[in-house]
């Protein structure tokens, strides 16, 4: 495994006007790492993901991903990342096929006519290729959103509360897909409230509190119950909002 940092975040500060959302965040990940971001509501998990994706600009500090910097190497950077959030970024009036065709074109995907059926197959939506996304259930939309996010075969996948609105089965199907990507060697960073699912997917975990990282360790060997204790301790409140299993 390459030990050079693939994702380098140094002294990241993000302010919205006078409110500071992220304070001096440092993160170093190597290629193929998987990181789960936990923390209470408002801790800054989504903000951090968005800054890493370059949807938000840092107020100060630096973010380098695969050697690219957000402003300087915008297009190159965007080409290698994919984002799956609770919003799907899908166009409701377009069909599943058309949505994928659009994003495929935007990412310059080669041999799109072959790639789209491949992706639809992967997310189990081949039968709905010509149905308009408006008519899809939440679970189907989320699956298509995965397709949209990986159509260009990104090296890094960001997930921001992706399980929102999914039922038990939906969450498990979703997790299976993401596990596939992780096993293919992609770098995965996920922000979530779902302790159990997060730990299943990721080898490292970070806890964010009020914009600060208060914990960042390898957790492959830690059980969910042990982690829950660590979490309560770090966050300093009852871990009621955590979903275990």
């Amino acid at each position, binding site marked *: 495994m390459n030990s050079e940092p693939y994702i380098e975040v140094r002294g990241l500060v993000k302010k919205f006007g006078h409110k500071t959302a992220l304070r001096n965040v440092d993160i170093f990940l190597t290629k193929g790492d998987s990181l789960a971001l936990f923390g209470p509501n408002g801790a800054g998990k989504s903000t951090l993901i968005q800054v890493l*994706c*370059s*949807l*938000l*600009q840092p107020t100060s500090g630096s973010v380098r991903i695969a050697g690219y910097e957000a402003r300087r190497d*915008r*297009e*190159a*950077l*965007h*080409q290698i*990342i994919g*984002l799956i*959030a609770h*919003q*799907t*970024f*899908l*166009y*409701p*009036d*377009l069909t599943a096929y*058309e949505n994928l065709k*659009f*994003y495929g*074109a*935007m*990412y*310059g995907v080669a041999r799109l006519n072959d790639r789209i059926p491949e992706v639809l197959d992967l997310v189990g939506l081949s039968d709905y290729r010509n149905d*308009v996304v408006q008519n899809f259930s939440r679970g189907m939309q989320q699956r298509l959103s995965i397709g*949209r996010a990986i159509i260009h075969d990104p090296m890094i996948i960001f997930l921001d509360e992706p399980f929102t609105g999914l039922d038990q089965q939906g969450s498990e199907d979703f997790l299976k897909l993401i596990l596939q990507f992780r096993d293919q060697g992609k770098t995965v960073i996920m922000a979530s409230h779902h302790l159990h699912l997060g730990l299943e997917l990721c080898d490292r975990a970070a806890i964010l509190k009020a914009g600060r990282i208060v914990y960042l360790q390898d957790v492959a060997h830690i059980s969910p119950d042990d982690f829950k204790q660590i979490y309560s301790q770090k966050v300093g409140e009852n871990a009621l909002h955590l979903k275990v299993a």
Partner: protein
Amino acid sequence: MKFVHKLGAIIWKDFISEFRTKEMILSMCLFSFLVLIIFNFAFGLSLKFDRGMIAGILWVAFVFSGLTGLGRSFSMERDRGTLPGLILSPVSPWTIFLAKLIGVFLFTIVMEIITVFIFTVLYNTTVLPFLAPLALIAFLGTLGFTAVGTIFSAISATAKARNVLLPILFFPISVPVIIASVKATGIILNGNPLQMIFPWLKILVAFDLIFLLVSYLTFAYILEE
């Protein structure tokens, strides 16, 4: 050529959406139809109009209904939550701007053609003999105000009161375009030779070039957060 391919993809996507819902084009045409009717009531039933006034009426209809289309151009992306998807793609902000501009421009031209047709019917006046120069003025003028409108649509899409903010930003800046377009149209409709509108065309071309350049330099900042 990748740039053209991506530009085409965004335009294609907007066209399909519009083709399925027909939201923009219907509301624009309906609005301009209403404007023409209201002008008729406002100025009485006299059918004999000063040719300059026809120019004014037409351009008011074009600009006001163009504005309804412009408003949707970015607010739709924001409301449906698809704007981050666009920003996240490996495409320059100016490409997004240009794609939106071309889309709205084409829809507005369609609306203008329909408006002229409705006008011919309602007011029993034809502009057919002057079609070529009018098309040129319409092209340059529409390009001007849709460029300005697209920039401001992107700016006001973030605001809560976006329907109010867009006209407030739009009108002071589009004054030169409106003056030049109306004057030039009036001159042509009065049967004057093409040379007489050259100064106005120069203003329109200067305006178009300056604002396309400014959008190129600043659009990235509009999308940035």
